[in-house]
């Protein structure tokens, strides 16, 4: 009996050692990030699987309870389970983050590539437009769209997407310009390849690949912007538990119940970080670049 236990213990220790030493296939941070991403994905698609309570169920007997075994992350002023509310709000936050970033980058790509490739007056006009928009604070642009379109999830997506795109567009343009000037593009020209082939085989892939990292960083940023708008009361309205709305609701009680602010904040940070870490890792693998220590 004792023999069996110890061998099981050894096996466990061996596996842990393999995970922690050089024998592993992925770095530890990727495992951690992937775990969080999987958690948030499940929470977004099927929140009921992960919830311990009904996120909308009020309980007048247990308001502002600190984190415990029954309420993992505590409860809010109405006795609702914070953990379940965060899980319920994941879908909103994640879809706003992905949607806004996708919209922002799509716009940035179209305009940035057009500006970078065409040059001349088209480039001048577009560049000045990017500069002008970039000079306005993102939050200001987003507020403008929210005030024009009203508050809802699609509005948040559009507001944050449009608000963040000028910065990306400028980056895309510079990328295209710098790739256009490389000697491998010239080498392709010298070989007699057509401009279309050069565009699709060299310029676009090389101009876009840094954007993959920007995308993953952007998702985190967009979530934070959206949360910011919700925090200002311009995002998704209560009783929805979008993370920014949670922060907004908890701010009045922060002196008595720190978890109302800290836990949604950690959720925002964890999602933004895990998307970034996994994104960067995937990009490194795809590019076959040697990883720097």
């Amino acid at each position: 009996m004792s023999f069996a236990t110890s061998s099981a213990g050894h096996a466990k220790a061996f596996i842990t050692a393999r995970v922690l030493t050089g024998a592993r296939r992925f770095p530890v941070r990727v495992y951690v990030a992937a775990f969080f991403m999987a958690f948030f994905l499940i929470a977004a698609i099927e929140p009921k699987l992960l919830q311990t309570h009904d996120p909308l169920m009020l309980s007048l007997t247990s308001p502002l309870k600190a984190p415990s075994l029954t309420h993992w992350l505590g409860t809010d002023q109405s006795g609702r389970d914070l953990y379940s509310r965060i899980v319920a709000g994941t879908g909103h936050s994640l879809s706003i983050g992905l949607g806004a970033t996708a919209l922002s980058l799509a716009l940035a790509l179209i305009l940035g590539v057009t500006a970078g490739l065409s040059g001349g007056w088209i480039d001048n006009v577009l560049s000045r437009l990017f500069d002008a928009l970039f000079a306005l604070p993102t939050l200001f642009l987003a507020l403008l769209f929210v005030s024009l379109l009203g508050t809802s999830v699609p509005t948040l997506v559009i507001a944050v997407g449009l608000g963040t795109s000028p910065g990306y567009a400028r980056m895309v343009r510079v990328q295209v310009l710098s790739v256009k000037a490389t000697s491998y593009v010239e080498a392709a020209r010298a070989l007699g390849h057509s401009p279309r082939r050069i565009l699709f085989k060299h310029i676009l892939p090389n101009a876009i690949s840094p954007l993959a990292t920007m995308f993953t960083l952007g998702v985190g940023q967009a979530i934070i912007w959206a949360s910011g708008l919700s925090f200002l009361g311009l995002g998704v309205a209560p009783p929805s538990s979008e993370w920014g709305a949670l922060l907004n609701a908890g701010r009045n009680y922060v002196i008595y119940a720190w978890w109302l602010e800290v836990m949604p904040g950690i959720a925002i940070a964890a999602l933004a970080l895990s998307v970034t870490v996994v994104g960067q890792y995937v990009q490194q693998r795809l590019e076959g670049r040697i990883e720097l220590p």
Partner: protein
Amino acid sequence: MNVTYPAASFRQNATPPAASVPLLGVQNLNVSFGPAHSRRDVVKSVSFTVEKGRCVAIVGESGSGKSVTARTLVGLTGARSHVQADRLTFQGKSIDHLGDTEWRALRGKGIGFVLQDALVSLDPLRPVGKEIGEALTVHRAIRTGAELTERVLELLKLVGVPEPAVKARQLPHELSGGQRQRALIATAIALDPALLIADEPTTALDVTIQAQILDLLSETRERGKAVILISHNLAVVSQMADEVIVMRHGEIVEHGSSEQIFGNPRHDYTRSLLKAIPSVQSRGSRLSSYKAPRFISAERDVTKALAQSDIAQRSRPLLEAEGLVKRFRGPDGKLRTVVNDVSFRLGHGETLGIVGESGSGKTTVARMALALERPDLGEVTLEGALWTAATEKERRQRRSDISVIYQDPLSSFDPRWSIERVIDDALARRRGDPLDRASRRSEVSELLDLVGLSSSFRNRRPLELSGGQRQRVAIARAIAPRPKIIVCDEPVAALDVSIQAQILDLLGDLKSHLRVSYLFISHDLGVVHHLSDRVLVMNHGVAVEAGAADDVFLRPRQPYTRKLVAAVPQLRFQAA
């Protein structure tokens, strides 16, 4: 003197240098990098001494450990290094295990260090005069403004920078390459250090400027200072050094006086290095022991076919440039004539060398020959047909007739592409029936084989290859479309002598086997002379002199050519 003593106690007992103690003593120096379990030895048991007023040169290929050895002497090997020596003394004091503060006190004051690339070594946002001034103030040699300014100007004058008062106020990028390098030397000699270490001080410079820098280093030595010169240019070394240390793979393979090393080299490696230098004497002979590539039968057929069509076409030139003029608008908005009325002809199977210093317009000529740049006046014709005057669309089909090899192969490859894809991409431009997937694959292997690389390289990325391997891949790409002309723009400028020798041999082999013509551009007269049939000398955009290679280099008629040829350092002490 094989005594090992603990460095710390030695420092305490440091005695004033006796006459017999050398200025610098290095005994059994070992340097390694990386963590304990995967330590890489970069310098292995190196010992030498440097006396006052002497110049010791360290030569070797990149990766031989010569730069690391030099950096050890100023404590700049970095945090990940592990330095160990039985004895490391400067002016009789141990400089082993010095702390940061102690190193700072020694650097500049006791030992001056000149780095290779002046542009990156000088602060881009600081006037040159301030930079030199800092060298003086850091060690509290001079504090007051007027005295400092005076000393800075004195130093700039000493290193031969024209108009010191103006240049002192300019930023590094406003100075020419030679002036920058001289300003950097000025910072190194500002405090008159007893030992000056110069790491490849002339590598990026033109021959005439190189000659000036070497004169400057000679003067320093004549003033009783010691110089450690690190270079891969053996001719430079033979001009300067009293003693030569030949390093390879971190070890000293040969150490002796210049006369002995150059006149009577004992080690095979030293001999191969000497043989690798392209020059007048080396014409027509091989520079490396690298074997001629195995040629496949298909390529031979092409050779024959080309040879036959040759005879019919030999009468007219392959590429003809007539009165090329190119102007560019400078940053000040003024038009600058970069190429002014340059004409040349390139025949079948011929090599035309274009030689000139940086800024002479030779690369612009190459780009016009490739029709990547449109001349403002004049035109280039390819096989008697319009070339630069044609539209890009018309040219595209014929671009496979003329390909290019760049100085920096790495930047000419898409960083995301494997070697196979790079070559395959060029194969797609070969004229005739498109090749199917399988035959393209085998063709890639054959091309790699032809340039002396194994098929295992096909899946690697450019970043993973060495400089020489990358240039081989660039050559494979250039010959893949079966061009009639290859434009080589400084193809060996970034390579070590021995690798350069292999690449030049490969280009020579390909020329005779494939019957291609080369338009060969280089600032290195020896390289051009080695490979070219005819030569065009350019200066400030003008073709100064043209003719057969031997005529131009051995019997130059124009003063500029004479000056250029005279500035090339010659190997001294060489056995006949």
